[in-house]
């Protein structure tokens, strides 16, 4: 069996997840690999993008750290971190403003961290370094007969107390990665490249040894202290408010989605969005529609990018209805919400004084599910043309949404009536009482589970199922986000 993997969503998920924690969140790339297996049948991926009104909300984002720039100003702290020091944090906590968790650069001898912490012309590190450390420290042991003082390597960068001894901030700081490679920050150091396991009564700075048998790291139980070391330049960037930008979610999503589409190859991708309103069914019944059929990314890329870039954020959040339309598409069922659906097109984008981009002039346009997604490929065809044509072909829905469902109940009855629904998908929620929700969208999780558990194309060899990924971002995924994921989205997970 030939297996290939197509990386997708590195940029998209990372960027959108960055919006995901309501009060605050953390940005980083997150990758999903869509496996492609057997007979060179590319995976099918349907992107469903949130175009509801809440996507016009503003969020902040962060300008990436540039190690070559040394002019950051930690204005959020009132004063800059000193370039004479490096700073340490524990447990993923970045040193706070005015932190005394500092080590003079002259005492920091971890050669392995140099590239990561460097700043200025030619620097390329990320500004921080994580590892296991030891510090030459002063240990005072108090006994009835008096106290004794020795110096030794300890795993504590900031001093430490035990029942009998007090360990004070010491001098040199070294890292495990340097063991056997460098001592005192010097790769040669006359061969003394191991911090000694021995104590000393008078040396106040630190002792290295050339014998591996005398290495502190070789002593059973000595693991070092786990710390992350930050350069002052990085912390000045971290607390520099000018490194924040304000942007609308829709603009952020458009930028990220287009970047994603540019990065993909060897995968089939389709595109759906929420229906703004249906002339036939009224504003409250929207669902979603297929605006680009699942096809080779090379074929559909330009169309999808153009569509995404044109959308204005407006309307409700019909999550389960849109997923149900995706189910119909994958299974070759009847076009429903995509019969008379409408899209929102931005005619003029404007940049606000805070730098955020919003739509200043928009139009509602007719946008039924496209002919190319139907069978036969005409705009009047009643059924979708299923893209699941090969055994072992992988099928995915990637659903990007920022909010809890609204006006999202019209598909409930149809979902519950699917063959073997209760035996394979369980049941829809009976209620969803969360701030930001109008109590609809009860069948989202069950439908995702149904699409994974059932063969949606019995006429094709093998099991043709769909794995659904939800990427949630925005305020609705903050305080109640985890609860919501439990309530609404766990049905999507592969078993």
């Amino acid at each position, binding site marked *: 069996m030939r297996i290939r993997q197509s990386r997708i969503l590195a940029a998209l998920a990372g960027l959108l997840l960055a919006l995901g924690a309501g009060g605050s969140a953390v940005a980083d790339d997150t990758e999903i690999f869509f496996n492609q297996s057997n007979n060179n049948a590319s995976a099918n991926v349907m992107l469903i993008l949130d175009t509801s009104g809440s996507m016009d909300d503003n969020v902040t984002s962060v300008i990436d750290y540039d190690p070559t720039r040394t002019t950051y100003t930690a204005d959020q702290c009132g004063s800059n971190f000193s370039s004479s020091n490096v700073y340490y944090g524990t*447990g993923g906590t970045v040193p706070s403003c005015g932190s005394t968790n500092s080590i003079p650069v002259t005492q920091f001898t971890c050669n392995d961290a140099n590239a990561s912490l460097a700043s200025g012309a030619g620097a390329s590190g990320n500004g921080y370094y994580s590892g296991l450390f030891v510090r030459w420290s002063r240990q005072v042991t108090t006994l009835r007969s008096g106290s004794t003082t020795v110096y030794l390597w300890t795993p504590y960068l900031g001093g430490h107390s035990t029942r009998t001894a007090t360990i004070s901030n010491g001098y040199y700081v070294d890292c495990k990665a340097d063991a056997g490679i460098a001592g005192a920050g010097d790769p040669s150091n006359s061969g003394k490249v191991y911090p000694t396991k021995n104590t000393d009564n008078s040396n106040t700075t630190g002792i290295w040894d050339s014998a591996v048998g005398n290495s502190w790291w070789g002593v059973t139980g000595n693991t070092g202290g786990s710390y992350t070391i930050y350069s002052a330049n990085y912390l000045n960037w971290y607390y520099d408010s000018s490194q924040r930008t304000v942007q609308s979610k829709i603009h952020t999503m458009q930028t990220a989605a287009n970047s994603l589409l540019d990065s993909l190859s060897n995968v089939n991708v389709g595109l759906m969005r929420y229906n703004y309103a249906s002339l036939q069914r009224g504003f409250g019944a929207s669902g979603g529609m297929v605006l680009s059929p699942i096809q080779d990314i090379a074929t559909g890329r330009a169309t999808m990018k153009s569509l995404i870039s044109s959308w204005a954020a407006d309307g*409700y959040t019909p999550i389960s209805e849109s997923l149900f339309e995706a189910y119909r598409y994958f299974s070759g069922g009847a076009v429903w919400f995509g019969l008379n659906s409408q899209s929102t097109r931005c005619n003029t984008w404007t940049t606000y004084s805070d730098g955020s981009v919003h739509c200043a002039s928009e139009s509602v346009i007719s946008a039924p599910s496209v002919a190319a997604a139907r069978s036969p490929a005409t705009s009047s065809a009643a059924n979708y043309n299923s893209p699941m044509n090969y055994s072992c072909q992988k099928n995915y829905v990637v659903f990007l949404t920022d909010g809890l469902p609204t006006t999202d109940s019209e598909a409930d009855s149809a979902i519950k009536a699917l063959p073997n629904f209760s035996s394979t998908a369980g049941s829809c929620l009976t209620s969803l009482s969360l701030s930001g929700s109008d109590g609809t969208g009860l069948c989202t999780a069950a439908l995702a589970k149904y699409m994974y558990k059932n063969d949606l194309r019995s006429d094709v060899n093998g099991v043709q199922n769909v794995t659904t990924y939800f990427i949630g971002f925005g305020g609705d995924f903050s305080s109640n986000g985890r609860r919501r994921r439990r309530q609404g989205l766990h049905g999507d997970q592969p078993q």
Partner: protein
Amino acid sequence: MNLKQSLVAFLAGLALAAGGAAYAQRPPVTVIEGSIETSANQVIFPSSLAGKVSVLGGQSLQLGPGTQFTAGGRLVSLADMAAYARGAGSAPLTIHYRLKDSVVSRITILGK
């Protein structure tokens, strides 16, 4: 990386969004606006920017001098927005407000 491993990475990403410590080296990203997705016939507008816009059965939010109104694809005044909404029935209407003080930043209604 197989699919299950990929899923783990994905879920780890969600954990990140909730403030996972492992990735705390980057500054926090902040959601600074919230919004209410409702319909035009559920909203009561005040007569001036000093008043509050109310959603039936829900919140009342303060307008401000900087509040912008978009109706039918155009920037309009509060009075024009109120008039437009009265004739818009159940058309979707979105109220965006600043989370820090709950002052409305934008109200948008597109179609009738």
